[in-house]
């Protein structure tokens, strides 16, 4: 393969994912509006917002560290887009799947949040500083349950296959085909923990304490406007999409085409791609739309407790069930 084809593939993947993640955000807003008894904006609303934000003036406040203030949105968007290369999308193998595994993805997930923290501290607004501190707290809180979930999954798969952290291995031997009844319950518990982690990682209600519009006026992003705000908006949307794909890749790595018996590569690719979109939509529906409508925002201490204590214990319980299942069978 020559370089141009590779670059074209990369651009294609990022472009497609961006379009679909923007559509998903539109669907999410529409669904939430319907759940609240409102009509809601049309599905294309995020595209309109992005177009409008690009038209606006880009202000850099006097007190801000201007190079860091300008660089942070780019870092955030680029690291979010980087996730798309390592996570399997549209039912295909990940583009750089041979070079990175689930562990790398966990590390990469920290980077957009770090960029947000940098942005918050660089903008020299007290609101943004408070937001940045909250973002750091929540970031440190969800790491532990996330790591436990991924590691216990890989540990169980590692009993039957080599390289258990590779997404291709996880896709070849899905967790549900390995475990007995107890292990199935354990895996379901792990899936639940991962879904809750997804909500916090995407920074959505009830874990959107860092950006809380109603109390700290947009938090981290309070000083951002125009193009920079648009970059953060896109980064947030892409990261949400990547997180949903991560859950899909870890827990529901099935493809539809072998089941219905479609052999032709192009047709199978389209069917798998559509099936992937359905799976990712299901994940987003549960961990973002429904939770967002059902509950109100936590305090930062409560959110931290939910992750460090509750979710960690729950995912450890899932791990114990998995190992008991291994001993029984």
């Amino acid at each position, binding site marked *: 393969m020559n370089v141009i084809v590779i670059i074209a593939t990369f651009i294609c993947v990022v472009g497609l994912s961006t379009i679909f993640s923007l559509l998903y955000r539109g669907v999410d807003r529409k669904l939430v509006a319907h759940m609240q008894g409102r009509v809601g904006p049309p599905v294309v609303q995020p595209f*309109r917002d992005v177009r*409008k934000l690009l*038209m606006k003036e880009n202000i850099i406040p006097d007190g801000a560290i201007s190079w860091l203030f300008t660089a942070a949105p780019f870092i955030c968007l680029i690291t979010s887009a980087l996730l798309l290369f390592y996570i399997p999308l549209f039912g295909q193998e990940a583009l750089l799947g041979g070079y990175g595994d689930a562990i790398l993805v966990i590390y990469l997930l920290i980077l957009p949040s770090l960029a947000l923290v940098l942005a918050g501290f660089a903008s020299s607004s007290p609101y943004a500083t408070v937001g940045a501190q909250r973002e750091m707290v929540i970031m440190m809180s969800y790491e532990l349950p996330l790591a436990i979930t991924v590691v216990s999954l890989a540990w169980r798969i590692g009993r039957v296959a080599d390289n258990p952290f590779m997404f291709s291995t996880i896709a070849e031997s899905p967790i549900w085909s390995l475990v007995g009844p107890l292990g199935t319950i354990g895996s379901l518990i792990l899936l639940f923990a991962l879904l809750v982690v997804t909500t916090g990682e995407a920074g959505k209600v009830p874990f959107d304490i860092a950006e809380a519009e109603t109390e700290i006026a*947009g938090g981290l992003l309070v000083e951002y*406007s125009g193009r920079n705000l648009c970059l953060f908006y896109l980064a947030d949307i892409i990261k949400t999409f990547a997180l949903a794909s991560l859950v899909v890749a870890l827990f529901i790595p099935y493809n539809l085409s072998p089941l219905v018996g479609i052999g032709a590569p192009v047709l199978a690719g389209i069917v798998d791609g559509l099936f992937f979109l359905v799976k990712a939509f299901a994940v987003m529906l549960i961990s973002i739309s429904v939770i967002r409508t059902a509950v109100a925002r936590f305090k930062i201490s409560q959110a931290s407790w939910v992750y460090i204590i509750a979710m960690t214990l729950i995912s450890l319980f899932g791990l114990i069930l998995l190992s008991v299942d291994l001993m029984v069978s």
Partner: protein
Amino acid sequence: MKAFKRALWVYHLNTGSCNGCDIEILAVLTPRYDVERFGIMLVGSPRHADVLLVTGPVVKQMVPRVKRIYEQTPDPKLVVVVGSCGIEGGVFYESYSLAGPVDQIIPVDVYVPGCPPRPEAIIEAVVKAWVKLEKAEQGVR
């Protein structure tokens, strides 16, 4: 250019209002009126806003703040005054603590009379604002 059509972010600025107009602005967000279906969103920071919704007569303490918030809003921007107080003082007319109606402090584009105005009137004002923004945008080009 129709960039602002159906994607208008609104910042609510209270310059000493009695809270009547503010409640009407919140009513605009409720399921009954639901402005989000037009893409109008209430944002928490003037940096994100396209339109400033100003309620209340400007009290003396608020003058530098109102000017500063106006400066903080990125261009192109519009100011909508909601309620009689912001237009000519309303029930606080010629009060000792007033620095005058809003349009003596910052340029105003759309006025919404009423004490308080109906939510429909506020929605119509915001729609007028985006028509004006688009006209301004065409004038530049």
